């Protein structure tokens, strides 16, 4: 095989496509000057022809329609996956959570109201108790309280007498 850049270039072109008239002429001229490369070129050209003769694989006539159907299904599935999350949130997922939240808020409100009512009741009772104090004796009776308090305390009990009496 030759390492000549002209030959390599033309050979690489021939791997991809049929050479143009001008390229063919250039190659012929080059081969005349480099007859030792003729056998290599014949093998290259033979292989190019062989690969070129490989037939197209038959494609079913409904192939495009089948692909479009599959793509449509895929597109619908993708939309469903995308929308599913949103719809789930809209329709289903929030419902139990919201119900639980409402129950908790309701229970909280109820206990708050009960606490408030109990507090109110106690307040009413206190007010009632204070209002009852107006029926007590006048504070005037306590005017000599301090004087009485400083008087000698009562004598200690006669324990012997108590014992005899028992």
């Amino acid at each position, binding site marked *: 095989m030759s390492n000549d850049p002209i030959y390599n270039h033309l050979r690489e072109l021939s*791997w991809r496509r049929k050479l143009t008239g001008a390229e063919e002429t250039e190659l012929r001229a080059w081969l005349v000057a480099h007859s030792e490369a003729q056998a290599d070129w014949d093998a290259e050209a033979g292989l190019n022809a062989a*690969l070129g*003769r490989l037939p197209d*694989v038959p494609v079913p006539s409904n192939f495009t329609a089948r692909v479009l159907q599959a793509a449509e299904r895929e597109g619908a599935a993708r939309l469903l996956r995308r929308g599913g999350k949103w719809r789930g949130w809209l329709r289903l997922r929030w419902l139990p959570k919201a119900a639980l939240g409402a129950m908790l808020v309701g229970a909280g409100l109820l206990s708050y109201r009960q606490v408030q009512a109990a507090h109110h009741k106690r307040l009413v009772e206190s007010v009632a108790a204070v209002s009852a104090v107006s029926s007590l004796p006048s504070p005037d009776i306590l005017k000599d309280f301090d004087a009485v308090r400083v008087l000698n305390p009562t004598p200690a009990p006669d324990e012997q007498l108590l014992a005899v009496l028992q």
Partner: protein
Amino acid sequence: MSAPADPDAALMLRVKQGDTAAFAELVDKYKQPVMNVAYRMLRDTTEAEDLAQAVFVQVFKAADRYRVSSKFSTWLFTIVRNLCLNEIRRRSRHAADSMDAPHPEQEDQPLHQYEDKRTASPPERLLHGELKDKIEEALAELPENQRLAIVLCRQEELSYEEIAGVLGCSVSATKSLIHRGRETLKQKLKPYLQSGAWGGPQ
């Protein structure tokens, strides 16, 4: 935004906008080359058909994320390559399960017969049928990356740069893969190439 130079990329941008007709146009244009590559990689028409369908569905699925960074065909054949390699790996993991895999004792029998629609007399058709099977077999025996490089090389829409993009290697490495693959093919097909049965030198 300026329109992309690659008409297929422009079609793909329309697919991105939800244009099914543009997608159908792309499928129609590329179904044959995709099927050819898939078949030459998998050597099973049914699997090649399923794979080709999966390729286009993947294209459709990925339309949202599509960016015009390279030619559409490069992107498309990269998907073909990835799915083919996945399938080949899957096969090698489940080698025992495949009833369609070629068996050594059946190597002389062609796996699939395709009618050569080019006009030829019955003996010529027989000869071409045999030669075609020989080259399909020789191709199938090449390492995957060499085989893919050679098969892609026959897709005239792809330049060496684009083939390198599909294979994920440099242009020189791509040419080297093709060269090595072709050398193996030339060795295996030497008697047929020398006979000039395929039309001989260009």
